[in-house]
């Protein structure tokens, strides 16, 4: 087993970072989120002009034609900054799904728009719909909270189950969106309702659910890189603060309680990074290892990100709980990103269910609890 990124991949990441770090400041993210549109359309255009919305899209579609490993590192670099753009759903989840679904006419129709920043897709898990009725090429329904939905033009989701399952693509360009009190204050969640939105069924039955599981695990992998980037950003912010702030005649960061809290964060990030790299390798190979690897990456990235964001707020003292400090933006984001494609408990259960099912012997019959609980 080899787990490392090539220098080409790292070079590409540095190129992206070079542009992105200069533009994606927290002041700009705040301004974008509080603008009437609720997001930073100008930054989105800038990235699309440089090709960064089509990292894995083919050159024929205007993309950079890179492999998914490159996209993993770009995802991490995106995670390191705050930016009010729908990168997560559109440039990671949806862009990757178009390639993975492998329907030529679909990608010919949509991929050029994705690269140009005009088709802005999202993967929404079925649990995030309160209603979804599909009939005859149209769908009506509602998502009470969908991240980055101010900009979303397309939603990919799985409707129904078993033999009734359908992988569907909704065109929500004309949907009604309502500003809500979003937990994340940079990548805002909106309530979306749509009435007879154009809907296209991409797969049915087992094929649809299998495909959906793959798309979801791939998205979880990319997202784990975003979370690791975001966790490192929170850790860096905390570290910089405790080095420069003095108390009791010495830097806060020289106190062992502070050091140890940050060392625990670092260790959690390293475990998460290791799981993410493994998942990236599994994703790149395209085999069945991804199901478990994606779940593991997702859970440990969520743990690490939340731990980092909490430590960062805490080590900023009073400043950490203010609206002025960016610490709360990280704290909110860590909670929100852990929810977008389902909370960790769901991913843990998926992993254990797979492992138990894979065991040769069936589990023993359920027994009554023997202890007090």
């Amino acid at each position: 087993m080899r787990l490392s990124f090539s220098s080409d991949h790292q070079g590409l990441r540095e190129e992206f970072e070079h542009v992105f770090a200069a533009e994606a400041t927290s002041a700009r993210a705040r301004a974008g989120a509080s603008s009437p549109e609720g997001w930073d359309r100008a930054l989105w255009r800038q990235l699309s002009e440089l090709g960064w919305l089509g990292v894995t899209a083919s050159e024929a579609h205007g993309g950079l034609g890179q492999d998914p490993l490159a996209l993993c590192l770009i995802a991490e670099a995106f995670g390191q900054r705050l930016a009010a753009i729908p990168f997560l759903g559109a440039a990671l989840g949806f862009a990757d799904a178009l390639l993975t679904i492998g329907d030529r006419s679909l990608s010919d129709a949509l991929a050029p728009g994705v690269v140009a920043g005009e088709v802005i897709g999202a993967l929404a898990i079925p649990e995030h719909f309160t209603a979804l009725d599909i009939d005859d090429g149209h769908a009506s329904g509602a998502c009470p909270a969908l991240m980055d939905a101010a900009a979303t033009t397309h939603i990919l989701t799985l409707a129904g189950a078993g033999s009734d399952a359908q992988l569907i693509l909704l065109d929500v360009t004309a949907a009604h969106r309502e500003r809500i009190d979003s937990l994340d204050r940079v990548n805002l969640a909106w309530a979306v309702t749509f009435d007879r939105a154009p809907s296209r069924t991409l797969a049915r039955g087992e094929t649809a659910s299998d495909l959906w599981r793959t798309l979801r695990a791939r998205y979880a992998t990319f997202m784990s890189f975003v979370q690791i980037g975001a966790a490192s950003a929170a850790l860096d912010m905390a570290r910089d603060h405790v080095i420069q702030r003095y108390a009791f005649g010495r830097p806060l960061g020289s106190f062992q309680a502070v050091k140890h809290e940050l060392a625990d964060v670092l260790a959690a990030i390293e475990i998460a990074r290791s799981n993410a790299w493994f998942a990236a390798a599994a994703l790149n190979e395209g085999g069945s290892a991804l199901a478990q690897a994606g779940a593991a990456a997702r859970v440990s990235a969520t743990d690490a990100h939340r731990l980092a964001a909490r430590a960062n707020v805490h080590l900023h003292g009073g400043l950490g709980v203010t609206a002025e400090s960016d610490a709360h933006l990280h704290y909110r984001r860590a909670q929100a990103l852990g929810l977008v494609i389902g909370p960790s408990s769901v991913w843990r259960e998926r992993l254990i269910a797979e492992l138990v099912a894979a065991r040769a012997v069936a589990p023993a019959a359920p027994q009554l609890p023997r202890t007090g609980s």
Partner: protein
Amino acid sequence: MNLNDTPEEAAFRAEARAWIAANRYDERTMETLKGLAGNGAPLPSAELWALAKDWNARKYDAGYAVLTWPKAFGGRDAPNLAAIFAEEEGPLARFQGYLVITQFMCAATLMAFASSEQKAALLPRIARADDIWCQMFSEPAAGSDLAAVRTRAERVEGGWRVNGQKVWTSGAHMAGWGTLLARTDPTTPKHKGLTMFFLRMDSPGVRVRPIELMSGEAEFNEIFFDDVFIPDAQRLGEVGAGWKAAVVTLNSERMAIGAMLDVDSAALLDLACETGAITRADVRQTLADWIIKERGLRACVARQLTAISEGRAPGPEAATIKLVGGVMIEDMAAYALDLIDGEGLALRPGRDPRRVYRDMFYFGPAQRAAGGSDEVLKNVLAERVLGLPMEDRPDNRLPFNEVPTAPRG
């Protein structure tokens, strides 16, 4: 990024698998070795040591021992091959644990500082495990604060006279040789007055006394030095440069990695399935968390191996692996003993596979202390990786014999 073997690795794996199948012990012995620490009718320690040496000698004679050693000393400089060999060894891989100090820690120090004649005489015997070595660093008043060692080495005609005491020395009761960190100058600051030596454990004046562990085993020892003579030719490095030599020893993990990761969440999943506890949602969530952490640890080892094989210095992986892995052993042991409920209170007579959780219960705390405690590792991560400032420490400035110590009496 590749989850599979390279062609070279795949060829090595096939070759190793065939060799192991042809050379391993009979079924009964293999069965006894399963989960070594945790077998229900544990072999006496001396027998396990003998098997560990014998297995290593078989490997050496076939060219499979010390695969991580530099080529110049008869290794293959191939941590990846060592990891593959260990995967194929199955329960036999546990024997490497008996030889880590000999083949990695002590050998690394010799490779760096011994004369070429000494290396030629000593290293092949180490590689074959004909000689067991021990590492005499820690003392009653020098553990985490290792540079505080007080065992005194004074110049005499032709060499050094040593007096003092070491403690927690693993394997000293089996060792023919050992490396020794001693104070040669108490009047300079602590890190500067140390010197590294090696000596035969049957040197006159050396007395080894095994210390019983909470598990009932006696794998580490205290050692008393009473006017022990060490020839100056057995000094490793310059006089006063013992700290540097100690750091070489402690950093020899490069050669040791991939050797061991003592967490086994799959066994816990088996247990939960056997007892039926797996139907409980809380058990499923907790087990999933450990499985995920263990996967992370294993991928962390793979990252470290890859970095080394690509000629890069590994980052914070080693400290992370030990820090996270140690606590996990304690947590998992306690959880497993709870899972088997009343039976966790006592083992059944004879062969009880559940002994493994009892052994983990004993082993976790040892793992969290040995070779850099959790707190020391966290300081390393915070200071060396995150760049947080060191604490102000008067002991670094003062002559060693003026550093404050605990009040006596």
